[in-house]
């Protein structure tokens, strides 16, 4: 039977297991939306801005591991997706973005709302497609989902001209995929795994650095087994948080610019780094020449191009983390690195890093710790980008696998609210907290409308310090306190929420912090907490940009260790 491009697209989405899409329609994509009532199993959530739609799809994808889907029309609809697509690209999030395009005869004529979105997204997608005939649509959609979720996941964009959506063609769902240029390596090479095992068994001060790859691969058990059998301390990257339970005796926090001082110092002292699904980002390594100066490096990653890109590697293993660790674990000797573990404990004792000061005013660290205590850690936590993000990563303890959703690589302010929305849609039974800053929150504040209309019960906690806080901190430390363009004048967030019929409380006194969090938890539906916090609180520890990890500042202008 012949079907329209729109019908074919819907059938393909259902075949790929899509149950929800986030989007906004517009002129050229009306034919697709017009078909949606024929396919009630495809739920569409209308967002307020396409960037919110892209981040919501990311939040959904990161919470579930499934492919998130966002939809936009041509021109400005498509360009508004760009930040979300770039964010997904940097953090390896499986995403399919579908954009409408002007009709084929108009392409290249600078038609109304025509934009070359495949050109624009070339460097920020894993792959992208401009569909030039309806007959190839099904094949392209199948390929797009396959590419997005396999290998190193990432965003794939499909640009579909309006007349491709309306043309009729015989619909045949392709039963297989042929991509001769795309063959991700899953199993690690046995001889490399063997070499790695030997290095691990010979090392005296091994250190695991787990990244988001361990979460994507769901290698939680394998990672734990490796750590426990050989008694290897585990630190994570920011995006690797919740790959390994933070209350585990072998967990030593996370490393990098605002990571724990003891984690950063451990990198300096260790004699072997076992890097698992991470990519040696500059925020993680600090000055690259000073990174792990005494260590050999084993690097396991599914993307061969990541190996040797930023640091020299002694044993590279290309493959999916889970099967690679399964093979590796077979060759690991049961040992106890008593001296090394006790050295790690000493480092932690000497550089506690995440103690919370007793203050009269509200400091964000305290609020975040209370959210942790009250939820008992049983929550998906989503953040924006800035100081609050670092404090959340430091002071909420993540034991539940894949429970922190945060924008790492791109550092996208405004990520929190829409991503939390996507996570909550994916898991309606779970508690989802969006911990945000006043600056970051305002960048996608319009999604309060979506949350209200769809009654998406996200609990929002804003650390309102009246500044673009992270930049203000840099200005304080490195620009002699010249606070250019960082002071904010925010609206009353509770009033804004009220306008959307979302209840909220402004919290100014420390004594009200705990009751307000409880109130938010007890109230059905979304709730907003506006915490007025200490305006000039800084995030420590801090490794200044360009410094080595060992040059971490533990408190204002005091170096832990100078070299």
């Amino acid at each position: 039977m012949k079907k329209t491009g729109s019908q074919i697209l819907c059938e393909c989405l259902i075949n790929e297991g899509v149950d929800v899409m986030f989007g906004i329609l517009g002129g050229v994509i009306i034919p697709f939306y017009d078909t949606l009532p024929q396919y009630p199993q495809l739920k569409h959530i209308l967002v307020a801005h396409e960037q919110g739609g892209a981040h919501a799809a990311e939040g959904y994808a990161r919470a579930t591991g499934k492919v998130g889907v966002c939809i936009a029309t041509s021109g400005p609809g498509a360009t508004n997706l760009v930040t979300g697509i770039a964010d997904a690209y940097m953090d390896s999030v499986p995403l399919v973005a579908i954009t409408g395009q002007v009709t084929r005869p108009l392409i290249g004529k600078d038609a109304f709302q025509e934009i070359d979105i495949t050109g624009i997204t070339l460097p920020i997608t894993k792959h992208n497609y401009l569909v030039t005939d309806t007959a190839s649509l099904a094949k392209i959609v199948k390929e797009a989902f396959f590419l997005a979720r396999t290998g190193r996941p990432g965003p794939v964009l499909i640009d579909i001209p309006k007349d491709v959506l309306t043309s009729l063609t015989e619909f045949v769902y392709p039963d297989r995929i042929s991509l001769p240029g795309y063959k991700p390596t899953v199993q690690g090479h046995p001889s490399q795994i063997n070499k790695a095992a030997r290095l691990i068994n010979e090392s005296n001060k091994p250190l695991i650095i787990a990244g988001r790859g361990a979460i994507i691969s769901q290698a939680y058990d394998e990672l734990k087994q490796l750590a426990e059998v050989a008694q290897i301390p585990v630190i994570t990257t920011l995006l690797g948080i919740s790959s390994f339970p933070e209350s585990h005796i072998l967990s030593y926090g996370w490393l990098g610019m605002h990571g724990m001082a003891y984690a950063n110092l451990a990198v300096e002292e260790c004699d072997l780094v076992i890097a698992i699904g991470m990519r040696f980002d500059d925020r993680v390594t600090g000055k690259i020449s000073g990174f792990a100066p005494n260590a050999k490096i084993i690097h396991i990653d599914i993307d061969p191009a990541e190996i040797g890109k930023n640091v020299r590697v002694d044993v590279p293993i290309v493959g999916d983390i889970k099967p690679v660790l399964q093979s590796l674990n077979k060759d690991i000797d049961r040992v106890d690195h008593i001296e090394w573990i006790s050295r790690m404990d000493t480092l932690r004792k000497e550089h506690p890093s995440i103690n919370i000061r007793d203050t009269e005013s509200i400091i964000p660290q305290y609020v975040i710790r209370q959210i942790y205590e009250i939820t008992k850690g049983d929550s998906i936590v989503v953040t924006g980008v800035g100081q609050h993000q670092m404090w959340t990563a430091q002071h909420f303890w993540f034991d539940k696998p894949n429970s922190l959703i945060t924008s790492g690589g791109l550092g996208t302010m405004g990520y929190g609210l829409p991503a939390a929305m996507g996570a909550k849609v994916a898991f309606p039974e779970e508690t989802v907290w969006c911990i945000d800053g006043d600056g970051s929150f305002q960048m996608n504040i319009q999604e309060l409308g979506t949350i209200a209309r769809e009654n998406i019960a996200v609990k929002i906690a804003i650390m309102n310090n009246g500044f673009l806080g992270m930049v203000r901190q840099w200005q304080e430390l490195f620009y002699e306190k010249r606070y250019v363009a960082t002071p904010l004048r925010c609206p009353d967030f509770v009033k804004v929420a009220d306008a959307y019929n979302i209840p909220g409380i402004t919290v100014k006194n420390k004594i009200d912090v705990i009751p307000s969090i409880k109130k938010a938890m007890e109230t059905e539906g979304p709730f907003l907490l506006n915490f007025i916090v200490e305006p000039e609180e800084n995030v420590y520890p801090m490794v200044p940009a360009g410094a080595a990890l060992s040059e971490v500042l533990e408190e204002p202008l005091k170096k832990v260790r100078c070299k």
Partner: protein
Amino acid sequence: MLTSKHTLVAMVTDKPGVLNRAASLFRRRGFNIDSITVGHSELPHVSRMTIVVVGSSAMVEQVRKQLEKLVDVIKVADVTGEGTIIRELALIKVKAVSTTRSEIMQIVDIFRAKIVDVAADSLTIEATGDEDKLSSLYNMLRGFGIKELARTGCVAMVRGGAKSAAIDKESLKDIQ
């Protein structure tokens, strides 16, 4: 860091935008490309790209890996080495008057190049060879006055039985 000239051969699916994807990758990653050529290969729907890049071996390895990440790129091989034939074609239009014409023709002979057009005040020369040969020819002719130069960039092939850039034809049967 030690840098040297590397020649990469990439087999790519013959789809619109493939050259753009490769070129965009080089620009974005800051890879400095000497030349890039693309044309048909022995296989239908598969094009062959030759990329000449100057850099350290670590940098060239990154170029190769990043290229291989492109979905439309089937295989990339570094064919740098003595067993590789590298050729380029150049068209050179050089000023020539009655007093210099025969001298130019002698040089063209020595380089086993061809004169493909003669005009009252110029000669157009077609030459093929590796990059060094074409550069030497150019240098010899420079004194006469070069009016125009067009070089194609290199294509490369490994000698004899070795087929470092060859790909499994079976894996390509579904390409259209």
